C-alpha cells in the first residue's frame, strides 16, 4: 500500500469542455481530438439519438416489448464506444443499446433481446461486445477477467465496462474494482450516473462525495466528467483507455448525466420525480451542445447536418425493416445451447416439444 491517495481523487467538479450552450468552457484548453474525430463522434451522436427515438416508436407500436432508453445519455453512449480500438472489448448494460450500435453491431441484432426473440441477438466475438447485462454490476467482473486474459497473453486489449449509478451499490461493483486494482487489469469502469435507479434518486443510493470517489478505496484513480459533454467524455475516457493500455491499470470514470425518460416504457416516472426536474436538463442536451459548438467552429453547416440526419434515418429504416422481417424463433434453440451437446435428458425433453409441434401441424 504505497499509493498516495491524492492521485486517486477525482477533480472537484466534473470535467467539462463545452458549456450547455456549446461555448468552450473558460480556463480549459480543448483536448486535441482533431476535426475528423469530432465530426465522426457527432455523427454517431445523431445516429444514437435517432436510434433511441426509433426504438421508442417501436415500443409504442408494440413491436418491441420493452426499451430502456438512453435518451439524453447519448454522449456517454457514443464516447464509450468510440474511444475503443478494434481489439478492445465493450461490456454494456441493458440501457446501452446505443453504445453497442455505435460500436458497430447490427442494430437489428441488438434489438433481438427487446423484441423477445432471444436473450441476445449478436455474436459477442465479432465486434467484441459482451451480451448486454441485466443482473446489475455482474458484468464488471467479467470485464476484469477478459482484461486479465489479455494481460496474461501480452495483448494490448482494453476493456470498457459500463454500469449505472444504482449498480455501484452492488457487491460485485466492489469486487470488480478491487480485483481490477490488485491485478492491474486494463479496465475502464464507466459509471453513467443518470441520477436514478428506476425510482431511487442518487441521494438515497450513496452518501459519497461523488461516485468517482469510490476509486480511492481500491487504489483506482477516479475521474468525474460532464456526461452530456461529448468532447469531455471523449477526452477523459480516451485518456483512461490509453493509460490502461500502457499498463497504468484500471480507472473509474463517473459521467454525470440524466435519464430523460422513464426507466423503461413500463415505468411511470411521474410517481417519483417532478417534470420541472426533467425540464431543467433539456437545455443540457448533449446534441444541442455539440451541434452549437461544431457550427461555431465552422465544422458543421446545414448541408452536413442534413447528411448526418439522412444517415441516421437510414439506420432507423434498417431497424424498422429488420423488425418487419419476422423470422419466428426456433424452439430447437431452447435445447441446443444449454450445453455443447444435448444431454440425454434434454434430448427426451426436446422430443416432447417436437411431438407437440408435429401434432399441431397435423391438426
Amino acid at each position: 500500500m504505497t499509493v498516495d491517495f491524492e492521485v486517486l481523487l477525482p477533480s472537484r467538479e466534473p470535467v467539462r469542455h463545452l458549456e450547455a450552450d456549446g461555448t468552450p468552457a473558460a480556463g480549459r484548453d480543448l483536448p486535441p481530438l482533431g476535426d475528423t474525430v469530432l465530426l465522426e463522434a457527432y455523427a454517431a451522436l445523431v445516429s444514437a439519438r435517432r436510434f433511441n427515438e426509433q426504438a421508442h416508436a417501436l415500443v409504442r407500436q408494440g413491436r418491441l416489448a420493452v426499451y430502456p432508453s438512453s435518451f439524453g445519455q447519448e454522449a456517454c453512449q457514443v464516447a464509450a464506444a468510440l474511444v475503443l480500438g478494434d481489439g478492445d472489448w465493450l461490456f454494456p448494460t441493458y440501457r446501452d443499446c446505443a453504445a453497442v450500435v455505435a460500436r458497430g453491431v447490427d442494430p437489428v441484432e441488438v434489438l433481438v433481446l427487446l423484441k423477445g426473440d432471444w436473450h441476445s441477438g449478436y455474436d459477442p466475438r465479432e465486434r467484441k461486445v459482451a451480451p448486454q447485462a441485466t443482473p446489475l454490476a455482474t458484468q464488471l467482473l467479467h470485464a476484469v477477467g477478459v482484461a486479465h486474459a489479455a494481460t496474461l497473453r501480452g495483448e494490448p486489449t482494453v476493456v470498457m465496462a459500463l454500469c449505472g449509478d444504482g449498480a455501484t451499490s452492488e457487491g460485485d461493483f466492489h469486487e470488480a474494482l478491487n480485483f481490477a486494482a490488485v491485478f492491474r487489469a486494463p479496465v475502464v469502469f464507466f459509471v453513467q450516473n443518470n441520477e436514478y435507479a428506476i425510482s431511487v434518486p442518487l441521494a438515497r443510493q450513496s452518501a459519497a462525495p461523488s461516485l468517482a470517489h469510490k476509486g480511492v478505496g481500491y487504489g483506482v484513480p477516479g475521474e468525474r466528467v460532464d456526461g452530456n459533454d461529448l468532447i469531455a467524455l471523449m477526452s477523459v475516457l480516451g485518456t483512461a483507455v490509453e493509460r490502461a493500455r500502457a499498463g497504468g491499470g484500471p480507472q473509474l470514470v463517473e459521467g454525470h448525466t440524466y435519464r430523460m425518460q422513464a426507466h423503461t416504457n413500463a415505468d411511470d416516472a411521474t410517481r417519483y420525480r417532478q417534470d420541472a426536474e426533467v425540464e431543467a436538463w433539456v437545455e443540457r442536451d448533449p446534441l444541442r451542445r455539440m451541434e452549437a459548438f461544431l457550427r461555431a467552429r465552422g465544422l458543421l453547416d446545414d448541408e452536413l447536418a442534413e447528411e448526418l440526419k439522412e444517415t441516421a434515418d437510414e439506420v432507423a429504416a434498417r431497424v424498422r425493416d429488420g423488425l418487419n422481417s419476422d423470422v419466428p424463433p426456433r424452439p430447437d434453440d431452447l435445447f441446443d445451447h444449454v450445453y455443447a451437446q444435448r444431454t440425454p435428458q434434454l434430448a427426451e425433453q426436446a422430443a416432447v416439444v417436437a411431438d407437440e409441434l408435429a401434432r399441431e401441424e397435423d391438426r
Partner: protein
Amino acid sequence: MSSDVMSAAGVQKLTMAQALNRALRDAMTADDRVLVFGEDVGPLGGVFRITDGLTADFGDQRCFDTPLAESGIVGMAIGLAMNGMRPVVEMQFDAFAYPAFEQITSHVAKLRNRTRGALAVPMVIRVPYGGGIGGVEHHCDSSEAYYAHTPGLHVVTPADAHDAYWLMREAIASDDPVVFMEPKKLYWSKQEVDLDAPAPGIGTARVVRDGTDATLIAYGPTVAPALEAAEAAAQDGRSLQVVDLRSIVPFDDETVTLAVRSTGRAVVIAEAAGFASVASEIAARVSERCFHHLAAPVTRVTGFDIPFPPPKLEHFQLPGVDRILDAVDALQWED
C-alpha cells in the same frame, strides 16, 4: 387504491396484487414492528405496485427504498429482526434474489438453530417468481427449489388472492422466516377475498377440486392450468382431483397422501425446471407414501431443464393444459 376500499373488511373482489397490498397494510396497522423495504418499494410502490401507497400512508420509516443491493437488503433485515423488528423485504424479481443467497442460506435459515432458539429472525422475503408475463431473461425464474431445499426456511406460494392475503398475514405473524413466492403472472387475476375468514395456517394444502380418477398436484402458477385441465378432462368423462399445495415447506403430507390414495394416480405440475426440484420431491414422497395405492407411476409436468426461454418462446416452457392432459392420458389407464 383508495383508502376507502382498503379499510372495509368482509368479502372483497381483489386482484392478487391488491390482496397482497392489503395484507401488508393490515399487518403494518396491526403491528408497528412491521417494516417494508427493498428496491423501489417506496414512492414508486414497487415495480408491481404491491407496496403501493405504503410510504405515503405509513411514512418512510415504515416503508422505504434501500440502496440497490440484495445481500444488503436481506442482511439488514436480519439485523432488524434480531433487534425486534418484523421486516418484509421485496426482491424485485426472482433472479435478483441470488445476490442474497448467502445471507438467506447461511443466516436467515440458520440463526435460530445456531443459537438454539435464542435469536429468531422472523422476516418475510417476497419473491415475485415464474414466467408468463413476457419477461426477459432473469425476470422469470422459478427459484422455489433453492429455498425449499434449505432447512430453516418456510416456503409458501398462493394461487389466488384470498390465499395471498392470508398467507401473507400468517407469514408476517410467523416467528420463522418465510420465503413468500408470488406467482407474478397472477398479480392481476381477481378473486374474492374474505378478510374475515383466515385461511388454514402455513403448512396446509387444499383440495381445490374433487375428483376420483387421478390427482393433479400443483402450486402457485400451475394451479390454474391444473383446474383448466380438470375441467377439460371432465368433458371427456375423466374426473380429476386438484390439490393446491399453498405451502411447500412445511409440506402437507396428510392432505396430499390422502388425495393420491383416493385416486391411485398422480401428476405433479410445476413451472420450474424439473430436475432436483420441488416437483421431484413431491413425486418421490407420493411414490413412496402411496406405493400400494398407485395404479400408474407418478409423473411430472414441469419446465424443461433449460434456462427460462425468451418471451416469444416461453409458452413452450410453461406447463399448459394440453401437456397436463397428455400426462393424464399416459397414466396407464388400460393396464
